[in-house]
């Protein structure tokens, strides 16, 4: 990150069109270093495409993305070792043991002391007893923890999470959220979290960006969103936005 660009992630008029269909439509936002932001939206709102463009996996049709001062995807190799991600669209190789998988990714990310790093992560994420088990033999919750361990293997400064607690039971999901919050506080990491889970966003995020049909419909703190829509939960705010009920409409009602 340079002195002129204090944002860890800066998105300017970002657009993605797939074969005539606009998936992301000219969105802009900046995420300060050390912040945790929720990206909310229904299916097809453009959350995953936005995250994929931030990661450099998808080339924007128009607009710019900058991560830690590097223009994505053109300068991605300058910063990829300082980022990481977790997504339901990818898996860890199932036949490899947890230890083998983490060792491969640690080496890819240039982690200096691989064995102690794996041991420490495994202890933090309660994976020690599973380290020598094939990843494919683990339960869904255990696999999510392995994916999280991979996402944290390089102590990333920017962490992109796409539905990190999808398919987890409430207890495990809550445990994962706690670990993410701990990580952010301990490392000052910037976290962008795409989710359908309103409780998750409400609990973790200081800021919420709500997307609909590729556009940003609203962008504020959870408290201000609740106040503005006159609602008690973010789920109700989300439903208002998803169904096109505006704050003024609510006021008239």
């Amino acid at each position, binding site marked *: 990150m340079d002195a002129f660009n204090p944002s860890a992630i800066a998105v300017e008029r970002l657009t993605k069109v797939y074969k005539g269909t606009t998936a992301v439509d000219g969105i802009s936002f900046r995420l300060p270093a050390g912040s945790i932001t929720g990206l909310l939206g229904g299916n097809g709102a453009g959350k995953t*495409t936005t995250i994929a463009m931030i990661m450099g996996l*998808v*080339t924007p049709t128009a607009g710019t993305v900058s991560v830690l001062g590097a223009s994505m995807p053109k300068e991605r*190799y300058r910063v990829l070792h300082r980022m990481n991600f977790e997504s339901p669209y990818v898996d860890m190789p199932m036949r*490899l043991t947890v230890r*083998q998988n983490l060792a*491969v990714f640690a080496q890819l990310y240039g982690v200096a002391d691989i064995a102690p790093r794996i041991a420490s992560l495994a202890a933090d994420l309660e994976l020690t007893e599973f380290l020598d088990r094939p990843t494919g033999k683990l339960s869904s919750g255990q696999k999510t923890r392995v994916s999280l361990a991979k996402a944290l293997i390089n102590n990333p400064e920017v962490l992109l999470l796409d539905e990190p607690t999808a398919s987890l039971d409430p207890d495990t999901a809550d445990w994962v959220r706690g670990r993410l919050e701990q990580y952010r506080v301990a490392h000052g990491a910037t976290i962008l979290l795409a989710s359908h889970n309103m409780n998750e966003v409400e609990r973790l995020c200081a800021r919420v960006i709500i997307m609909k049909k590729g556009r940003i419909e609203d962008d504020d703190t959870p408290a201000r969103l609740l106040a503005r829509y006159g609602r008690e939960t973010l789920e109700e705010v989300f439903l208002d936005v998803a169904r096109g009920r505006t704050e003024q409409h609510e006021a008239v009602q």
Partner: protein
Amino acid sequence: MNSADAGLEFSLNRVGAMVRRYWYLLRSSWPRILDLIYWPTVQMLMWGFLQLYVSQNAGFFATVGGVFIGAVLLWDILFRGQLGFSISFLEEMYARNLGNLMMSPLRPVEFIAALMIMSLVRLSIGMVPVSLLAIVFFGFNLWAFGFALAAFFANLILTSWAIGIFIAGVLLRNGLGAESLAWTIMFLFLPLTCVYYPVAVLPDWLQWFAWILPPTYVFEGMRALLIDHVFRADLMLEALALNAVLFAAAAIAFVKLLASARVQGSLLQTGE
């Protein structure tokens, strides 16, 4: 943009990480190892016994022992070399791991280097035992080719890698819908590169096409060695020049297909 930004920087450590990943996978599954040896053995035995039968009943073949077995073994270097490269790549797609790799600091050139190394590892596991079996069953010693074998091998493996790189690009761009190409494309080369017969057998117009394929020179070279006892260095050099062109074309195609995959958004969703 400097070379690091362009993904041209090269790290042996990251190549080592990928080789480690494929080695873990290979050693965790005995059917994968068995598969590497099974088909080359069956092929070699079938063609070897056929040659034995023909040579006992036809004067010409009695004087050129080993042409069929030699052709089978060299063909397997070409075919298994490409398959070894492509299968390692496909394993990433089956495992839904490509997104993890593409999002990591691993450069495309390092990924390709790791796939090349694994192609050699898989080829060695399959071909070394089979070449020894050829000695036991038919008295055919591929290793006796000496320097010629090194020249044949280098040219065949270069072609197999070039095809593998191109197929990897197509898979990135089109997903597993293009998987069958990885398994079958080399069979297009089987009749055209004249594995089991001289180029002169082909019609004139097809000979022109055969001579633009590097393996054709290798198989002609092998026949020259076994039948005329002459090592045709000229053929090997021509094959090497064609391989350089083929390899460069495959690398360019890969880069363009990867860029297209980023535009189409197919790197995260690499299914059918």
